[in-house]
């Protein structure tokens, strides 16, 4: 293997990717127990009590039901406490990197409880379990509805506070970020009310069917009708909030189809759809009869049994949904794992359906920046020049002997390809079999370096045709680079966050007069939001506040954007996405831009909408 310079300057980052079966099953238990707690109180307050209020005679049934619901609530509370404690210990172990036993001892638990968002959330939730226990004890003694409603409030808060135990806790600079937490909370509450009340409904219907008295049947009828209203509103809430959460967490079709997170989310949606289907049978086929069956006890009983059967199926599907919730919350959502595209085609807005590859939607692990491009240049020279040529025009020494002419890697069309597709071709070869794959010669990081180099060189070539008029059409991007200015470290990408930039490139003698003119103009340019960065492509001793200090890899990269015939100086106007919108040369027809042109162009460039930057560079 050849030596690779600067190999270690790559950025690597990784998150835990394996699914932890202990953590996901603990989460499943905790979610299920929390939902049952909320659902039991919901069932009492919103279904059972109103139903019994209209048929006060069904006293014995009510007593039997209450006994079972209290047992269910106490068991759920116990499971919630034990699984919640288990979850805390596993999280403490993961956070501290210590084994489970060590996380239990010592100060780790204390630090997690008092110094992390998760821990503080858990303290609040521990307080809520105490409140729920008090409510259950009081309610069992007094049978007070008011206490039941307080219990419902506490149980709902217990479920809602799960929103801070996972992805909902984090805030990011995305549009409508404020919507995410409320959507998450409503989703949890609706799921808890629906799924959690299913088991109380089943218990209730079993008791009612056993009773077989006409009062029991009447109560069952009212309860079932009330439950269907609850179910409908919960399902509506789940769909709306589910759409919002999917948008926040999965984000794109490749992420849905090509990542484990997305696939599990689709499976969850499918199971949810099946639950709605079963609920729909209740709604459309059974409930209309139930409404008519007020006077026919045997029909009512028969229907109640079928509702009971369907509710059991829904509850089972609900357990699978919660199992997915248990797993999905510990996976990195959406695009943070590379989506492996499962289809041989994809849809492109400009070209319709086009050929696609498993890596089509991969984002580069190496940022489009000078260090990567400098690593890619020698790799290109070693592996690609024989066919594609030193200049990338498809005219290498072997080109004439091939049945298909090697691709010209300097055409504008290059930028129409997804980087993930170039990654596939370099790794596995092209479909026509002429270009071989280099997966065994170049590591994935090296393939990205080659792609960055090829893109930068093509961008440099295409820039030679960029004129002095601001172009609002497609423009090619200047790579990111680090520099030091007035003793402070900076990068192009950070500078562009504040506004457009004028990059001044000069080789040989510094264009002293021009730099002094720009330096004098700088306060006005800065006020207009334009930053000037002057780079000497050969080490220079010239002193000017606009000249930044850069390393050799940055000089080599920016040389791709320089023209030997530029009369000693090239100036590039960049929009906030680093796209080159205009170019002036000292030797050009109109010469360099005068101050008023620079100011008006800066204002125009500022108004060009820039697509969100590809957030590449931290995968791998």
């Amino acid at each position, binding site marked *: 293997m050849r030596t690779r310079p600067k190999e270690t*300057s790559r*950025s690597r980052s990784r998150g835990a990717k394996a699914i932890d079966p202990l953590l996901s099953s603990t989460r499943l238990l905790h979610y299920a127990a929390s939902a049952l707690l909320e659902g039991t109180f919901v069932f009492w307050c919103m279904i059972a009590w109103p139903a019994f209020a209209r048929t006060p005679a069904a006293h014995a049934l009510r007593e039997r039901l209450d006994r079972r619901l209290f047992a269910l609530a106490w068991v759920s509370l116990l499971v919630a406490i034990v699984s919640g404690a288990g979850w805390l210990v596993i999280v403490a172990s993961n956070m501290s990197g210590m084994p489970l036993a060590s996380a239990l001892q010592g100060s780790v638990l204390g630090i997690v409880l008092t*110094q992390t968002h998760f821990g503080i959330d858990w303290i609040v939730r521990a307080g809520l379990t105490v409140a729920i226990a008090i409510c259950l004890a009081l309610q069992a003694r007094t049978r007070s509805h008011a206490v039941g409603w307080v219990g419902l409030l506490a149980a709902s808060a217990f479920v809602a506070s799960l929103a801070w135990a996972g*992805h909902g806790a984090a805030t990011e600079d995305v549009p409508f970020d404020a919507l995410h937490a409320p959507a998450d909370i409503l989703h949890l509450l609706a799921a808890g009310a629906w799924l959690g009340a299913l088991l109380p409904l089943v218990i209730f219907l079993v008791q009612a069917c056993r009773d077989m008295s006409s009062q029991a049947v009447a109560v069952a009828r009212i309860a079932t009708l009330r439950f269907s209203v609850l179910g409908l509103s919960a399902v509506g809430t789940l*769909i709306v909030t589910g759409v919002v959460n999917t948008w926040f967490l999965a*984000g*794109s079709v490749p992420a849905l189809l090509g990542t484990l997170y997305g696939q599990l989310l689709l499976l969850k949606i499918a199971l949810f759809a099946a639950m709605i289907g079963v609920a729909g049978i209740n709604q459309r086929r059974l409930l209309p009869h139930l409404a008519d069956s007020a006077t026919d006890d045997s029909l009512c009983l028969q229907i109640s049994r079928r509702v009971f059967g369907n509710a059991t199926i829904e509850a089972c599907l609900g357990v699978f949904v919660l199992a997915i919730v248990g797993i999905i919350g510990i996976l990195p959502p959406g695009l943070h794992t590379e989506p492996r595209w499962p289809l041989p085609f994809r849809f492109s807005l400009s070209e319709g359906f086009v050929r696609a590859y498993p890596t089509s939607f991969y984002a580069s692990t190496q*940022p489009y920046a000078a260090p990567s491009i400098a690593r890619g240049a020698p790799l290109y020279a070693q592996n690609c020049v024989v066919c594609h040529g030193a200049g990338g025009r498809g005219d290498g020494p072997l080109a004439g002997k091939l049945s298909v002419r090697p691709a010209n890697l300097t055409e504008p069309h290059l930028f129409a390809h997804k980087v993930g597709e170039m990654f596939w071709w370099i790794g596995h070869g092209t479909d026509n079999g002429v270009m071989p794959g280099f997966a065994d010669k170049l590591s994935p990081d090296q393939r990205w370096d080659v792609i960055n180099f090829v893109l930068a060189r093509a961008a440099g070539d295409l820039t030679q045709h960029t004129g002095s008029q601001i172009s609002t059409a497609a423009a090619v991007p200047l790579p990111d680079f680090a520099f*030091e200015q007035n003793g402070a470290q900076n990068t192009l990408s950070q500078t562009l966050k504040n506004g457009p930039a004028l990059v001044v490139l000069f080789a040989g003698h510094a264009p002293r007069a021009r730099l002094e003119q720009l330096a004098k103009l700088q306060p006005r340019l800065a006020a207009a939001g334009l930053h000037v960065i002057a780079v000497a492509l050969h080490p220079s001793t010239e002193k000017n506040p606009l000249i930044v200090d850069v*390393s050799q890899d940055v000089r080599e990269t920016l040389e791709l954007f320089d023209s030997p015939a530029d009369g000693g100086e090239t100036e590039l106007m960049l929009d906030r996405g680093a796209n080159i919108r205009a170019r002036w040369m000292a030797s050009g027809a109109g010469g360099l831009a005068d101050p008023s042109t620079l100011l008006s162009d800066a204002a125009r460039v500022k108004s060009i909408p820039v697509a969100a930057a590809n957030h590449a560079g931290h995968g791998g």
Partner: protein
Amino acid sequence: MTMRTITAFFLLVAMVFAPAAVRAHAFLDHSDPAVGSTVPSAPATMHIWFTQELEPAFSWIQVTDKSGASVSDGTSGVDPDNKQEMDIKLKSLPAGTYTVKWHALSVDTHTTQGDFTFQVKGS
């Protein structure tokens, strides 16, 4: 009900085609000195910005020289004014290559880690 469900699912499908808003673990956003860069003069502090807020209790940075010896001056900390930024003071660094290791615990309880190098140019 059925029609409403179908409509809702079409809405869902339409929504997922909307622009991606990705939320996940805390990953490195950018750093000063920049990842892989060569800096002309030695930085006094290493700054790393992340894509999410961090838990100070379980997040850290280590900076070491070629021999693996720590070159930090004190311990790293999350910026109290910007929970997405972590800093560590550095000793006066001679020319050479330095390795930065970071370990970040996001407020969503997920841990990420990574490393990169930067070089200080000889004067």
